[in-house]
């Protein structure tokens, strides 16, 4: 066991981890931050995306001990300071960009990373950036629409309610 200390959502947190413990398990099981989800075991689905030192990372591809000393942001840390939904989260609700909610944390974290890199993406750029995130419910239509809306673009012309 190794002591792992990280700053998560602005607060210092620590816990013991085996060498094989994944960051996703450390967040969920040790720190009880269960908003980060695990949907596969081959790093394909993206439900576990978090930000490590500002970069989007699939938390199942990183060992907890590798994150020692890092600044980690999870879905629990994305809302505004007053607890209200941030721009991306609000856009997902406004445009029905989620159904069962399981892939949603990873989608929001990936979307935040995209908009940081590319504040005004095209539809094609959004779709390409989401290649590592699988959603089985929405057909992506409303996720793409929500991300475009969160970037400040007019999505009125895109079909659907």
């Amino acid at each position, binding site marked *: 066991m190794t002591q792992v200390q990280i700053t998560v959502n602005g607060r210092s947190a620590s816990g013991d981890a085996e060498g094989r413990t994944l960051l996703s398990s450390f967040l969920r099981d040790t720190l009880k931050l269960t908003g980060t989800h*695990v949907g596969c*075991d081959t790093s394909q689905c993206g439900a576990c995306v978090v930000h490590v030192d500002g970069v989007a990372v699939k938390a199942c591809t990183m060992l907890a001990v590798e994150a020692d000393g890092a600044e980690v942001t999870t879905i629990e840390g994305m809302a505004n300071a007053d607890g209200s939904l941030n721009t991306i989260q609000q856009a997902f609700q406004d445009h029905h960009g989620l159904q069962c909610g399981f*892939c949603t944390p990873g989608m929001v974290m990936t979307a935040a990373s995209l908009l940081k890199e590319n504040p005004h993406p095209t539809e094609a750029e959004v779709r*390409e950036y989401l290649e590592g995130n699988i959603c089985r419910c929405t057909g992506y239509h409303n996720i793409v629409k929500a991300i475009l809306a969160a970037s400040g673009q007019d999505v009125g012309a895109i079909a659907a309610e």
Partner: protein
Amino acid sequence: MPKDGGIGASSKRREDVRFLTGAGNYTDDINIHGQAYVHFLRSDVAHGTINSVDTSAAAAMPGVVRIFTGTDFEGVGGMPCGWQVTDRHGQPMQEPGHPILAQGKVRHVGEPIAAVVADSLEQARDAAEAIEVSIDALPAVVDMKAALASGATKVHDDLNDNLCYDWGFVEENKDAVAKAIDEAAHVTTLELVNNRLVANPMEPRVAVGNYARGTDESTLYTTSQNPHVIRLLMGAFVLGIPEHKLRVVAPDVGGGFGTKIFHYQEEAFCTFAAKACNRPVKWTSTRSEAFISDAHGRDHVTKIELALDADNNFTAIRTETHANMGAYLSTFAPSVPTWLHGTLMAGNYKTPLIYVNVKAVFTNTVPVDAYRGAGRPEATFQLERVVDKAARELGVDPIALRRQNFITEFPYATPVAVEYDTGDYHGTMDKLEEMSDFAGFAARRAESEAKGKLRGLGVNCYIEACGIAPSNLVGQLGARAGLYESATVRVNATGGLVVMTGSHSHGQGHETSFAQVVAEMIGIDESMVEIVHGDTANTPMGMGTYGSRSIAVGGSAMVRATEKIIAKAKKIAAHLLEAAEGDIELKDGAFSVAGTDKSVAWGDVTLAAYVPHNYPLEDIEPGLEETAFYDPANFTYPSGAYACEVEVDPDTGKVSIERFAAADDFGNIINPMIVTGQVHGGLAQGIGQALLENCAYDEEGQLLSASYMDYAMPRADDLPMFDVDHSSQTPCTHNPLGVKGCGEAGAIGSPPSVVNAVIDALQSAGKDVTHIDMPLSPDRVWEAMNG
């Protein structure tokens, strides 16, 4: 002008806030103090005799609490099947035993052989590696037709053969159909495969068992679409726990698509082991485990013949299907290729004679059961493909051929036992033509060709039977359960309501849309209505969510219970207003006396019900809580017309979806935003089936597509924006909301139009290609073009 609340409003989903902030409560988020973890050791061979399972070394490993094998469950019931099909000769289907852990033999890759319970998951996994299993491999039966050949290896030694049933429907029509086909002016024949799929909800299955020794009560937390059904099946048929000592909770569930309907071994195991170990026991499936333990879907091999007269009227349909059951009968498996498939073979057309034959076959593969659409996609695909092929053979317009044969008079009794109450197939096709700009297709094709691509246009119609189902009818058809739904509406003293529904929301947004209905009925704000689901401790017996049944059946139960509430509240209001009950009107959350300005607010009436100081105690009891059970009189029949435009790269065979339009008739609609989202998701799964997804076994029964590395899930850049319309509305005539259900339509309706479009594209280039089996992957399309 869109409404801002109530029925017909696109109310934003209240459940989204918790999902968007990481505050959801999925089963894997539940951890109980002192819990142990289970890891299942699963078979890596498809078929074999178990000689021994030596757990002695593993049992001595650190942290191991107990190791279970098949012998621990010899006194326990096996996994039950909820539907019995009677074959063509009046005999019941062959029904094999299905143990919780393998006993004597393994029959598919992934079948659990042993279960290690340990203090940590890592310890359980480590110990499982130390279990020594000796298995003599037997030949695996994978191909369905080979499984039925004389002398084939039997999956189950105690059955006569690998044929579960040979079903004929309607058997009395068989000869008449044969005669009509013999005498037809034209017969179009098509042989096709409806590819095996894996549902793949993004949340893998999870089960947490808990046992309270002090009260002898068991609780199971599970990723289920129908916790009451799990309680009934597991309690009564597997573990022998009375329902009053067994609670099943399905909290936030991360998608189901059918595969979380069924009662699985892992649920029974965790419940059993929690008592045996006197500790909570938790199992969380990995995705790799999900591929080899979640029930699969589809997997039909079909030959369909469509007979037409000289005027291109459909005169008869004959279809023969082999349906894969896998190694065991999953909970509702026998019903899928029969009553959910044969009854839909009329489609949207007035074909007078239909005969459906289905041979259900055991193989050494994972059990197959319902997946989004369940039987109806298989019916729609073969019918809409053969109609398209007929149009091409006859040189007529595929839309005109469909229109010519549409059912136009309702109610319409099909020759396959169901009666459509309402529909307007020309209406949805008109809408589709309006949405799809067919007139501009030639120009779009020319643009594609200028880029070196082929372009194709495919259309299809669909009909489905939803709102499952009239209990009396399904009982006659072999269902071992009723298919009503229940709701309890509890009004609190201060006027807020809690609706406890037997429907289960795992993405459908019931917490929002169900509240819209009750709010509209009473005339109060939606925020005053809370929807509670997923816990047998709260809700009376419920049948859960599948078959696009929630709003049609569960919603109707809720309406009936709310009507009882309103009726009682009117009695109270009449007393408070000193008026006759018949003069009381409820509008905008207030009761008034007709023709006067006397009124009393909803909250005053509810308070009086619980503080009955001025109350008609001699006539009615205090309190305001009502329960209703609603059993539908018929299925509902959503329908629609879909159009797909594809581009095919002739150099690689890659297909891309350029446009997709869906015109649906779901009857009345509660929340258009949610309905549109349901269609989007269904379309993605249908397009996924048509272009990407395939669950493949090799001849030894090894699953080749056992992870997201090999099973091609649709991703964002595989799909276009969808054009979805549901303004064609012919309300259902037999439920109080006039609703039909929308959850499965997209998955049912989309595969044929995709394949029709690709065939159109290839034929536009002069290729003599009349069919390609799904998925239309680049290699298959290229091979069809160049083979």
